[in-house]
């Protein structure tokens, strides 16, 4: 089968590959690039275990072809922490016991990040709707919702501190 050369940015680094046109993005990430934090839980886009960000937008990577990500910016769970410093969502999932087996967790964190990118202060109902394309079989979602609330508050507080510092610097 013919292959296509693609080049994309994955977690800030440029990655290239020659891929079959039918190769799924999730298989590119996992099997070609070795980024196994993104998981596969179904064949029908229902479970969201494969959720990543493509071009800044949440996407189910089992329902995208690798060639569709050519030239785009892709972020996976491996790109969330800044070295040893966890992303506020990662810390909050840990603090609030928002995970058990951990299999849905990377997709759930990526989706939660997208939910908070759209609305930094979502209601509980908005959080629940926002993650309704991601299935978790272990937690019953209660602590996932709490974790997203904790992270939202921390991200807002950090943004306010930054804004305050900027105002102080400008003043």
């Amino acid at each position, binding site marked *: 089968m013919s292959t296509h050369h693609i080049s994309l940015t994955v977690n800030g680094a440029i990655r290239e590959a020659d891929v079959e046109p*039918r*190769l799924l993005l999730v298989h590119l990430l*996992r*099997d070609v690039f070795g*980024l*196994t*934090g*993104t*998981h*596969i*839980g*179904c*064949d*029908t886009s*229902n*479970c969201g*275990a494969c959720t990543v960000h493509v071009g800044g937008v949440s996407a189910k990577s089992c329902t995208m072809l690798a060639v569709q990500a050519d030239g785009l910016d892709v972020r*996976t*769970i*491996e790109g*969330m*922490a800044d070295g040893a410093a*966890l992303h506020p969502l*990662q*810390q909050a*999932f*840990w*603090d*609030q*016991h928002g*995970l*058990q*087996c*951990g*299999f*849905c*967790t*990377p997709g759930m*964190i990526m989706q939660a990040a997208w939910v908070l990118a759209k609305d930094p202060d979502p209601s*509980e109902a908005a*959080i*629940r*709707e926002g*993650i*309704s*394309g*991601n*299935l*978790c*079989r*272990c*937690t*019953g*979602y*209660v*602590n*996932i*919702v*709490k974790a997203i*609330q904790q992270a939202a508050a921390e991200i807002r507080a950090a943004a306010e501190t930054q804004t305050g510092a900027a105002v102080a610097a400008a003043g």
Partner: protein
Amino acid sequence: MTTTYEAQAPTTTPEVGGMGHARKRVEDARFIRGAGHYIDDINLPGQLWLDIVRSPYAHARIKGIDDSEAMKVPGVAAVITGKALETYGLHWMPTIAGDNQMVLPTDTVMFQSQEVAAVIATSRYAAADGVAAVMVDYEPLPVVVDPYKAMDASAPVLRPDRGEGKQNNHIWHWESGDRSATDAALAASKTRVKEHLYIPRIHVASIETCGCVADWDAVNGHLTLHMTSQAPHAIRTVLAIVAAGAGLPIPEHKIRVITHDIGGGFGGKVPVYPGYVLAVAASFLTGKPVKWIEDRAENLQADSFARDYHIDAEMGVSAEGRITALKVKTLADHGAFDSQAAPSKFPAGLFNVITGSYDFASAHVEVDGVYTNKPPGGVAYRCSFRVTEAVHAIERLVDIAANEIGMDPAEFRMRNFIRADQFPYRSPTGWEYDSGDYHAALRKAMDLIGYDDLRREQAEKRARGELMGIGIASFTEIVGAGPSHDFDIIGLKMNDGAELRVHPTGKALLRIGSQTQGQGHETTYAQIVAEELGIPASDVKVEYGDTDTAPYGLGTYGSRSTPVSGAATAIASRKVRDKARKLAAHLLEAAEDDLEWTNGKFSVKGSPDRSKTIGEIAFAAYTNYPAGMEMGLEAVDYYDPPNFTYPFGSYICVVDIDKGTGQVKIRRFVAVDDCGNIINPMIVEGQIHGGLTMGLAPALYEEISYDENGNNLAGTFMDYLLPTAMETPAWETGKTITPSPHHPLGAKGVGESATVGAPPAIANAVVDALWHLGVRHIDIPITPQKVWRLLHERGIA
């Protein structure tokens, strides 16, 4: 943002982190970074891929398999058929229930999506191409879907391979209790209520499917099997037995089963599926590592399935509102092969715990297992062997009986509960309940939810024509299989091992035979060691899942980890403490009897300043031990539980029903659980949340159903509806704590309580909303369509 958790008062400091502390989970460090190590993350050099050709028919004769086109597909290395396996005697495998199951068929397929052939190729995609190119010629045969029709004398015999005298579809008959006493008690009862309940076939659908990487090393004659197993040691032994039966040179000491992180188990990763055996066979044939990863459709169509019990139950009630007797007759649909994971002597599991939380003298329970053209049935769905089916039946019957005699269902339960002073309590089917206080749990649930106010609100709404229901379930679980005198699986006693080594610097390594699938064993087992020895939990490394290093154990299911393996850990720790006492006596130049153990150190009675900490003692175990003593500080224990543990709880659910659509909305759900002493209250809370959601799922959404041709109607997540965050209510929880009198930690296990208790609470709430309209019972899942139809028939919808 902090959450407070209920538990017994801890006896250790937060720094030590023994029992009762909400210690954050050790394993999460890797999971939140996407650095977990699940089966599909394993890739070995030279690895081949296995994919499976599956039957579109539920029952058909295979007239021929043509692999010539498949073999032309680039990358395809081999196609394995049943005929090929037959030459090695590997086309059938024994099941843990004492039946046989096809690995691949040689002539007949028995259910839709059954494995028909395996394609081995150099990549995931090439293997799938190969599967698409295999041509199979089928001749459809009559399909048996209905288990009642399967019992007809005229039904086709589905398993002609069984011996003489077994040429029918009846697998086994099992009964418990006293039939004549039960009949007499029922005849003497003022009120008798009867109901037929179907507990539908469902699937655990853990978000990670099943899979393995089989790695046969021909040079050293060694097999390494990386797999998703809840019971790696049992798998190793079964593989060794199968290999010996087939004359293959793979003895048990040359088999290493490794289970890495598991993305959810819930019972679905206990059985041996043909895919695992095929991968082993393929690795043996090709000399290369072979990976098999099931996709979701295969998972929902061809694994083993839970429940599928057709129950007829009758209860008697006296003039005083006391239950007198319970009679139950059940048909169990086990599909084409009896591959259930039940203890050998208990083909219906612990189903005869069906007398539940109530004190009455007479019960009789019968179950008949039946073959149909469906995948194997009888594995768990997050519940101890058949307890969910039992609890659903008794809790529905109790509600029907209360309503029939015009008594509030809470009052009826209070009147009939086993009293706290009756424990240990011998049930009419022979179980000895270890401890409980059922009145306290229900009272607490009623207080938390405001029961009396809700009943008033319901009366007002009913007067206005609105549909609101309140449902109670007061369940008793039976977990921790099990005492060796009665419990084994394929002859293996259901004990579990723990091996504890304390290093010279006071740090420790604990290895256990149970297998986490998300329960947090790396965190909680360290807390048990901390509790018993005062070694900080953060200084205890917990290992499991590698049969070359972990002590033998039957694995994690049936809420048995804490009751069995947790107890083994406590006893191993106490053995270490016994040796530590001798070392302390040597160091302190005191008699052993003069020493007392408090807060992680031995001190001389009356002279608390003369003491040695466990850390000092550990160092002495390697540097300064008395003559005649062996060096080191370690111990092993295999725990044989003297009895089951009996977690219990009372759940109350409030629903509102939309008259226009039949939609059931759960407004509130309060769960009061009693799992005895608590190791980690945060994890207990999480287990209950998850269990409740897996109780909600079959109550309202999930069912694997089949049409008359045996076609699976829920074979993807488009049709098999797992609850999302939208459907799942914000669970409210409460606790009572009644320690188990026989478990060394007073703990009972909790993983499955909520899955067992939630469905009848929800079903009872829906029926409660509709009882005044003449609705007595609705089988789960209670879909909007079922409710709408009932309302429509009554001119309401």
